[in-house]
């Protein structure tokens, strides 16, 4: 079993969410939570990419840098 973890506290990611968003988009605006967002954006990149490309190889390459 994994080593004992300290007790969890409720997550407040407001500052880190803002920080990451600002690095990516350089704006204050952060989109709101949307109902059904997972379904809506599932396979979002399919339209840009052909079938059967070696995703696993690419992910490994990304990890190696």
């Amino acid at each position, binding site marked *: *079993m*994994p*080593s004992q*973890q*300290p*007790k*969890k*506290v409720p*997550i407040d*990611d407001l500052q*880190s*969410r803002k*920080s*990451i*968003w600002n690095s*990516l*988009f350089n704006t204050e605006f*952060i*989109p*709101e*939570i*949307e*109902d059904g*967002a*997972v*379904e*809506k*954006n*599932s*396979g*979002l*990149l*399919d339209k*840009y*990419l*052909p*079938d*059967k*490309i*070696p*995703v*696993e*190889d*690419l*992910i*490994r*390459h*990304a*990890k*190696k*840098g």
Partner: protein
Amino acid sequence: MNLVYKIFAVKGERIYLDANVLVYYFYSKQNQRFHIKAKKLLEKIENKKYEGIISSLTLMELIKSLRELLIKYSGIRRMDDVEKIVRDSISKLFTIRNMYFMVGYNEAIPVLSETKELYYNTVSKEAFDIMCNCSGKCDYAYNSGEIEHKGLHAPDVFHVVLAKKCKCDKLATFEWNFLQTKNEISPIVLQDSNAYW
């Protein structure tokens, strides 16, 4: 006796997401089975069965993977266009309910002045120790058949430590190598039939 390592995620647990989960969520064509697993996990997070954690390290890997995918296979050559697609995709993750974003910096821990601004200053020693303890194995590559080392990459080890720092209960991934770190944090390898979530 050959023991099977079974893992169970329960309602309310905090789950750290590896970048491959997000890549397979955004791209369904290469491996439909993995895409469905990734989507199902995100839906369970959205429906509040679990809390989802995305670290800045996960986003870095995701950005690099999407840039490589798009440049190599989409036919798009202008970097501005590639970058727009990458960032638009990532922005959608911010709209998922119960998904939390973590970028770490702990000012309470004294560090050398030279490393004070280093992203990994609070996790690097722990990550290094895990890397030393998880040596991996010698095996054949699934595509080329050549002998190779199969084991954790350095960023994988940082994921483990970041997941622990974020007090996650599980780490969700498609990478089998994370099973080596089950003594640090329980990995949910999403395609593993012995992982129940």
